[in-house]
């Protein structure tokens, strides 16, 4: 009986300890803001204009887009991304295609896409993103398509 109480008490204490460190986050349903906060201070696009060399009247390099190749997400459908590059930095990424043939894929990707966008922008021109849990196939295909887009953009 005493042991059962110790196990039960320990379980509650363990749950409480973890939840006080990383609380439950039902509200925002794991949707990060599309304008990811990590783009703030360290972003050269934002800081470039004020530090333009004096006398250089030319506009900053125009942004260009690059399309990645299409990769299969474990057979559920294809993933193809398009990136926008300005001054050698990825400023925007979008999905030309995501698996959407079946309801779960639609469901998964509706959830995963904002994360993948955020991770891509935070990765600073690298394709090595962590990916999204429950969307492993999409994440892998996204990373490969992103890599090909970066190569196409000459980064």
């Amino acid at each position, binding site marked *: 009986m005493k042991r059962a109480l110790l196990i039960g008490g320990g379980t509650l*204490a*363990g749950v409480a300890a973890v939840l006080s460190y990383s609380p439950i986050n039902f509200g925002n*349903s794991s949707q990060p803001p599309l304008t990811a906060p990590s783009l703030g201070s360290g972003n050269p696009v934002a800081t470039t204009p004020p530090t333009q060399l004096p006398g250089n009247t030319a506009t900053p390099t125009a942004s260009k887009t690059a399309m990645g190749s299409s990769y299969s997400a474990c057979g559920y459908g294809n993933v193809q991304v398009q990136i926008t590059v300005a001054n050698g930095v990825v400023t925007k990424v979008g999905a030309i295609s995501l698996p959407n043939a079946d*309801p779960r894929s639609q469901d998964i990707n509706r959830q995963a896409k904002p994360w993948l966008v955020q991770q891509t922008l935070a990765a600073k021109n690298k394709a090595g993103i962590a*990916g999204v*849990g*429950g969307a*492993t196939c999409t994440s892998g295909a996204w990373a490969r398509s992103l890599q090909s887009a970066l190569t196409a953009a000459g980064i």
Partner: protein
Amino acid sequence: MSAGHRTQRRLQRGGDYSALAVGLGLGITIAIQISTTTSHDLKSTASLITSASRLAALSGTYFALVGLLMVARIPWVEGSVGHDRLVTWHRKLGPWSLYLIGLHVVLVVLGYSMNDKRFYPRELWILITTYPWMLPATAGFVLLVMAGVTSYKKARAHMSYESWWVIHLYTYLAVALSFMHQILTGVMFFGHPLNKAWWIGLYTFVGASMVAWRIFLPLFRSIRHQLVVDRVVVEGPGVVSIHIKGRKLDKIGAQGGQFFGWRFLTRNFWYQSHPYSLSAAPHDKLMRITVKDLGDHSRSLANLKRGTRVLAEGPYGIFTANRAVNKNVLLVGGGVGITPLRALLEEVPPGSSVDVIYRAAKVEDLVLKKELDYLAEQTGARIHYMVGPRDQFPLTPNHLVKIIPNVAKCDVFVCGPEALVHRIRHSVEALGVPSSRFHDEAFAFHSI
């Protein structure tokens, strides 16, 4: 306070700390699921089922890891909880981890198939063939089910110890095979490095404990103590004693009543470790085990050659004389179960009043009789031989109290077949012996 009381207290505390640690770990494991649950996971029946399956997977795997830890032979845990209790808990926990992991398999496919509006078997097929590391995980689950089925009482009764043991060994592989699919597809791990660290840490801790205490310590001991077979002596029909020679054996710190996992390095048996109790208190240069022909392995022990190298895991068990709280001691041995009691008898504190009950079906089965008689003469112990069919020696409370009038004041040590252990337990409980003074070592406990 007597040494016996102190030992009892230490065991009590060891059990409490272990229970608390297991509870904390379970709490953390459940919490990493709760903290990564989003409103999306609760909005439909299908996603609720999927969430439940994740919880079952986490807790089931946690129990499997704890179960492995219980048989990892961690010296501190062995000494403070006791091997027999660890194995008992391992056996009780094992089925639950299998049920929970089975529930995970059933529910995750159900949740996904409902969400996708796919036929169940088709969903199962897609999950196994397209998700990363799902094929190894499936193989792992099959191995786990096999170990579960063969450990089921009725199935195990029909198998040799060796076959059961080899199949059971594959559970290590099963747990290892399932690891990658958890880390790669588990929603609680993706993008949550701390959760991942907890899980990887848990696996690493269990794996490292296994390797350190079950592989490296015995290897180290074998090199340090140079254990080799010295002599094989026939004690009776199907019973042999094996004398094992070595150096500085007192440094191992074994006591009478304890046992080792023995591994005899012959061509056919080097890979199997078998538990046998010491049948004499260990000396500086010699240890002895006495083994009855119970399976293929124990039969072949009779043919061991002098000089065969031996690896020994141990000593294990808290079936030792220093647990006795009282000056009155009753030792009950059934058949070859007398062997640890024979060793223990040498270490009963001087001045104790000792009774020994030795049950056997036939006179030939009374092994080590000469030694027992000699020790009885030396220590003043009274030996009650009970040879014959069971109904002749009922060992009921009435029967016991007639032979040993002060039985209620005794510390009782029993080793033998499970039926005998149960009978003695019931009888002495009825006579007022508290469970803290009842010490048992059923043969079955030895077998993991």
